[in-house]
């Protein structure tokens, strides 16, 4: 199937998904479930990855500063900028594309091959809206919080390494974290995160929804969903960076 055909089918599905939910009470219940499943359920892996990202950036930056003209607080500054501008929003999005994306594609794909989606349609329910809208909405709401938490944990990871190894003093590290701080960086990260949240829920939903066949097809849909979402995240990351930072 060519790219244009995919884009067309994807657009039609998302338009159906964004129609008004049949019952707001049910939608709210689904939304809370998805916030818990997609967001809170990803906290552990996000915390671990963010901590070690901050720790590694601290060690790498410190070990690459040879010149006496470069102040030591550059380490804290670099950790902050890297975490806020790129690592927290983009790397976390890529991790979630794997974890959440495969989960969504296989869940919806299994519902398709076991006729559960047909059952929804026969009941007169807009299956796209019922299944996909709560996932997209949940991710768009919760992911910015996850990314902000990731930023803090990453910087805390750097602090603990600085304190534990002494490669940079904690006061210089903290000074670097505060140095020339511009809130725009956080806004930029949140804007990116909202786009990424849409991508990591909508694309896997699309692959899951149009699964044809049996369990093998569900596995294939899950793989395609993760690969496609990751590529689209990187492309959108480039476009948004170009638009927002230059």
């Amino acid at each position, binding site marked *: 199937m060519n790219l244009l055909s995919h884009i067309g089918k994807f657009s039609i599905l998302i338009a159906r998904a964004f129609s008004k939910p049949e019952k707001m009470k049910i939608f709210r219940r689904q939304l809370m479930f998805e916030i818990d499943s997609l967001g809170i359920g990803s906290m552990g892996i996000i915390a671990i990855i963010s901590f070690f990202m901050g720790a590694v950036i601290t060690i790498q930056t410190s070990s690459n500063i040879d010149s006496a003209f470069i102040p030591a607080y550059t380490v804290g500054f670099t950790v902050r900028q890297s975490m806020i501008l790129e690592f927290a929003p983009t790397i976390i999005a890529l991790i979630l594309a794997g974890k959440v994306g495969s989960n969504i594609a296989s869940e919806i794909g299994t519902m398709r091959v076991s006729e559960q989606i047909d059952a929804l349609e026969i*009941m*007169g329910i807009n299956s796209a809206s019922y299944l996909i809208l709560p996932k997209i909405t949940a991710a768009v709401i919760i992911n910015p919080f996850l990314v902000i938490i990731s930023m803090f944990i990453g910087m805390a990871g750097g602090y603990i390494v600085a304190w534990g190894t002494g490669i940079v003093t904690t006061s210089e590290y903290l000074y670097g974290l505060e140095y020339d701080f511009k809130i725009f960086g956080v806004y930029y990260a949140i804007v990116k995160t909202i786009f990424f949240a849409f991508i990591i829920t909508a694309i896997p939903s699309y692959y899951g929804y149009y699964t044809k066949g049996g369990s093998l097809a569900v596995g294939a849909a899950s793989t395609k969903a993760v690969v496609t979402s990751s590529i689209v995240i990187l492309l959108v990351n480039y476009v948004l960076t170009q638009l927002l930072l230059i």
Partner: protein
Amino acid sequence: MIKLENISKAFNGEQILSDIGITYEQGKTNLIIGASGSGKSVLTKCTVGLIQPDTGKVFYDDREFTALDSKSRQEIRTEIGMLFQGNALFDSLTIEQNVMFPLQMHTDMKSDEILERVNFCLERVQLTGVNHKYPAEISGGMQKRVALARAISMKPKYLFCDEPNSGLDPQTSIVIDQLISEITKEYNMTTIIVTHDMNSVMEIGDKVIFIHKGRKWWEGNSDSILSTNNKELSDFVFASSVMKRLVDKK
């Protein structure tokens, strides 16, 4: 009553259904029989709108379903109950939640009224004490009954059953057949059953339609099917040695 007029459908150039016209009667169990790949399931999916036919019309009473937009179709679908071959129960919901699902989505009933209706439907299909279990925790026969309870929870005007006996033992099959037949009369529904189980045909076939090579090949009832001169139908019916012996005895 559901009426099909000149329904045709092809996939990738291969003709699956050709010019099929059928009237399914209200208050009766209308059975569609035919060999695997004859087009029975595609015909059913065309009837409920899961597949759009290439040509032809589908009428639900006087409403032309095929001419409606998706919103109007959804309204008609609230009058349809469907029992899927694989049951299509929602894995993440309990038995009780599965049966109450259509009621929660389409009615403004209070939760105690919904629960009352759910319990009534589960009792109607002779299933009690499983409300809080998940579909994976009950047997295939019980799952089929839950699916039937869910299908009738909205008091549908039309009931579709796709291979309701597949994967069931003969005794459970008879129970499911009897339930479908009784419920059809009770609610005065138009019931369409896709099957190749000849037991079902003989037990509950008020009207029987034989599909062969994508065409309506024969129409009659469970009495006339045994005396048919139609070769393809005879080959299908008497493929079972039990059926052969039954006729020989008679």
